[in-house]
């Protein structure tokens, strides 16, 4: 589905021009040659835009050392796949690292462009892809990280997420969206997904379990919105076809003139919810006529719906030893501080999953990792592994759900070293207070809000502030984000606390608003 933008070439932005001239997917057969030429020989559009169709990101802060973002549908990864990624990172030496992202995904850092062609071939060998994982593409599709093992599961999201990805990456899928697009499928009562452009939440209709459709959620520097009900209910089998239709419509009708007003919610606003729904249904019918119901689904199965659903509480952290729906088996949720991994940690995680579990891991939106299908008799040995001192199953209530963007180590626009600051401040707070329950803190380096600060009970955003006459690195503080039955975006509480004062200010907030108790100061001799 490669639809030409409606605008004439002369009115297209430079991003739209680059996309219209050449789809980044066309670079795949030339990747080895591009590596030989070197990235310095690439034109700007290829370097910073088109390569992202292959998941390859030029990083201005580490020029020559690229990032590769994968696709891990539903956050599922095997030990064999993780070991391949560990090897790729290990080869990068001091430059190599990886992040678990807030979309249950992994991105690798420190790679040379020459590494990409052989690495992509190796990824394909083990069943992984990085295709269309960046820029104006449908991003990694998220699902219930506990799918298939969750005692509270409403529906297993794995096959649904996989089939949506197959549809989107297939010949009928989008190649030139006006903007990025996030899709998610909920499968449990804690599947909070309203930050996605398109979210399918479990819902009943006439006694049948299916999904109600939510549209338009996103965070940006200009606007933040939670998804709203589209007023449609779908049987599970219709999700891939319907998603294709939403994206085909977005590809045709989305705003290509103003990138800061091009996310789906702006289109919904422009058309009005009712007209938008009708337009999507018409596109779906057209798609079904074109591709057949087997590939595009059956629009006649869609039903009007009031948007009520079965998601009614904030996401579980999934950490620690938790019994699975399968008797005699557990998952062990491990806290990965700030989602940052190194080669050794990745290789060890893979080994532990192979040795004690079924060789499968899950990644969560809170940037943590779960080893699944661990028989009861293996638990003791697994919990005694040295890696679990680093990736703890029982982190502090502050660490458990801390989420962070990359920060200025890898991003030109981050206003603070997000991961390092977050880790240092959290460790300091652990020394000062104890909490009766977890507090979800989301850290992000700039207004682009990649760390989703508006979803945190406490959200922090990089900023600058004046202290003692000097401009210093600082953090805005947001409070009140909720992902439960009454979802709410966090609101600005403080416009800039110098980082050197941040622990003091947060300590006070934790005591006043989250029931924290101050710990006695360490004795001084």
């Amino acid at each position, binding site marked *: 589905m490669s639809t030409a933008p409606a605008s004439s070439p002369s009115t297209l932005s*430079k991003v739209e021009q680059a996309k219209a001239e050449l789809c980044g997917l066309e670079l795949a057969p030339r990747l080895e040659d591009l590596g030989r030429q*070197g990235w310095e020989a690439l034109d700007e559009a290829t370097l*910073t835009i088109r390569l992202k169709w292959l998941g390859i990101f030029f990083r201005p802060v580490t020029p020559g050392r690229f990032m590769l973002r994968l696709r891990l549908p539903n956050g599922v990864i095997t030990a064999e796949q993780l070991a391949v990624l560990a090897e790729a990172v290990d080869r990068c030496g001091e430059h190599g690292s990886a992040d678990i992202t807030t979309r249950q995904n992994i991105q690798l850092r420190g790679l040379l462009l020459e590494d990409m062609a052989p690495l992509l071939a190796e990824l394909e060998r083990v069943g992984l892809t990085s295709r269309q994982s960046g820029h104006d593409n449908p991003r990694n599709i998220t699902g219930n990280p506990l799918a298939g093992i969750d005692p509270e599961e409403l529906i297993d999201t794995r096959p649904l997420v996989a089939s949506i990805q197959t549809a989107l990456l297939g010949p009928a899928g989008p190649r030139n969206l006006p903007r990025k697009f996030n899709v998610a499928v909920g499968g449990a009562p804690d599947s909070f997904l309203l930050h996605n452009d398109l979210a399918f939440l479990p819902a009943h209709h006439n006694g049948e379990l299916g999904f109600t459709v939510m549209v338009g959620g996103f965070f940006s520097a200009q606007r933040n919105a939670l998804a709203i009900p589209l007023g449609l209910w779908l049987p599970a089998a219709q999700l891939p076809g319907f998603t294709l239709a939403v994206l085909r419509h977005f590809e045709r009708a989305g705003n290509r003139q103003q990138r800061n007003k091009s996310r789906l919610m702006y289109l919904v606003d422009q058309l009005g919810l009712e007209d938008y729904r009708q337009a999507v249904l018409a596109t779906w019918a057209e798609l079904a006529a074109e591709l057949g119901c087997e590939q595009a689904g059956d629009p006649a199965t869609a039903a009007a719906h009031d948007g009520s659903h079965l998601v009614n509480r904030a996401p579980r952290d999934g950490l620690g030893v938790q019994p699975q729906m399968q008797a005699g088996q557990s998952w062990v949720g491990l806290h990965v501080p700030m989602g940052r991994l190194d080669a050794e940690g990745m290789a060890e995680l893979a080994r532990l999953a192979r040795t004690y579990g079924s060789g499968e891991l899950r990644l969560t939106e809170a940037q943590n990792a779960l080893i699944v299908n661990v028989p009861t008799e293996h638990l003791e040995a697994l919990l005694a592994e040295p890696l679990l001192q680093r990736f703890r199953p029982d982190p502090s209530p502050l660490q458990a759900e801390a989420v962070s963007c990359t920060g200025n180590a890898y991003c030109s626009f981050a206003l603070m070293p997000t991961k390092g600051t977050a880790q240092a401040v959290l460790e300091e707070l652990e020394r000062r207070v104890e909490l009766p329950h977890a507090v979800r803190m989301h850290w992000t380096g700039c207004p682009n809000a990649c760390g989703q600060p508006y979803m945190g009970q406490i959200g922090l955003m990089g900023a600058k502030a004046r202290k003692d006459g000097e401009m210093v690195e600082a953090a805005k503080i947001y409070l009140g984000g909720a992902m439960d039955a009454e979802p709410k975006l966090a609101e600005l509480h403080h416009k800039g606390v110098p980082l050197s004062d941040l622990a003091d200010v947060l300590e006070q907030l934790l005591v006043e608003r989250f029931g924290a108790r101050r710990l006695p100061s360490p004795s001084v001799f």
Partner: protein
Amino acid sequence: MIPLAEAPPGPAELPSGGDPGRWPFLQRLRRLPHLDPEPWLRAIESGALQPEADLLAVLAEHWSADAPLRLLRWWAAQPAPDPQLPLLVGIRRNPALADWLLAQLPADPLQQLGRPPELLAAQLSLLGHQRDARAWPLLRTWVQAPIPASLRRAALEGLALGLPVWPRAALRRCLRMLAADLDPQLAATAVDLLTRLPGCRRQLVPLSRRALEPAVAGRLQRRLAATPVQPLLLVVHGRSGGELPSELLSLAVELEQRRGAPVRLQALSASAPPDGEPLLAAGLPLTLVPLLVLPGGHVRQDVPAIAAHWRRRTRVQRQPFLGAWPCWQQALRSELQTLAGAAEPGQGPPLLLHHPLAGALAQRYLALLEQVTGGRTLATPYSAPDCDGPTLSFTAPALPLVLAANRLTDRLAGTVPGGTVGVPLLQRPALRAVLLDALEALP
């Protein structure tokens, strides 16, 4: 808000660091389809504007070709240049920029130790980005020089960033040497870079036999473990009816163990090729090695036919025949030198007894072999019509130029006084070890 619909904003309008308006200003600047960088350059050069990273990241998308060099010249003239700046502005390939960097970094690093190392390090990395082959001697010198580790590492990062353009053989030698460096970080990076070069097993396997720092050795083992090992087909002469001599059978068994991948023998004298299933199962290309020591008819006609047979079933990477391998020729030379050392005074150079060969190519090969090994080649008939002659006698120690027992060695055993002619080559431990090492390192 910036009135972007009107005149493009100028440097004077840029909010200062810390101003909440700076971030959105820069984002909007970044999205402009066209921006004249000249006023911004002038503002930086005059000191009116600080070249901060966020601003440079935006301007970099609008630079003219000469802007980076201009900014770097300005940067180098500052009393306290910011070492971060070069990588923010000078990473695009530009011959003039490469010229400037080469002029800034003299070939002898010891002359530059008075300059701040972080500035030199920035320039070394930048030089790698330029991927200019002229930088090879300089970067190699810096990476090997007795200078602070940070500078050597920066030079190695420069080599990493320009990896495909350096002369391959010299680069491999340099990296092999660095892999044993006392700086473990440098050594580890060298191992990783060797892994990125084509046919890396040839470099990594020999390294694994050296005494490396434990962490580097561990890294090397991880690289080797992750490097695919192709199945190996050894084309050998064999004996009548396709019988395989024991020397070859034991070689294949040991080799398979060392490579961790299937190794099979195909005898030229056999009526059919070996079972292909083990060689094809992994879906990797097949490495085909003619274990033949002379460029006779088997090499010229039979081996291509065998390769064609396997190409119908899989991808085949064909290696040259064994006799052409420099490491094999050097091993023969060592063996002959040992023989010569033990010879009686007055005896001529050791002999290499070989199957009679026809054709100019074969004669050129024999001449080369004599030149390299210091031995003398001697055609030694052994086929039935020739076997009725008198007992053979040699005036110097002799080696049969065959890997394993065959009709030539049978004849020699029956007609030459004991002790004059050595055993087949694979029965000689040093030669066997060299061959095993070389075969182990193949892709």
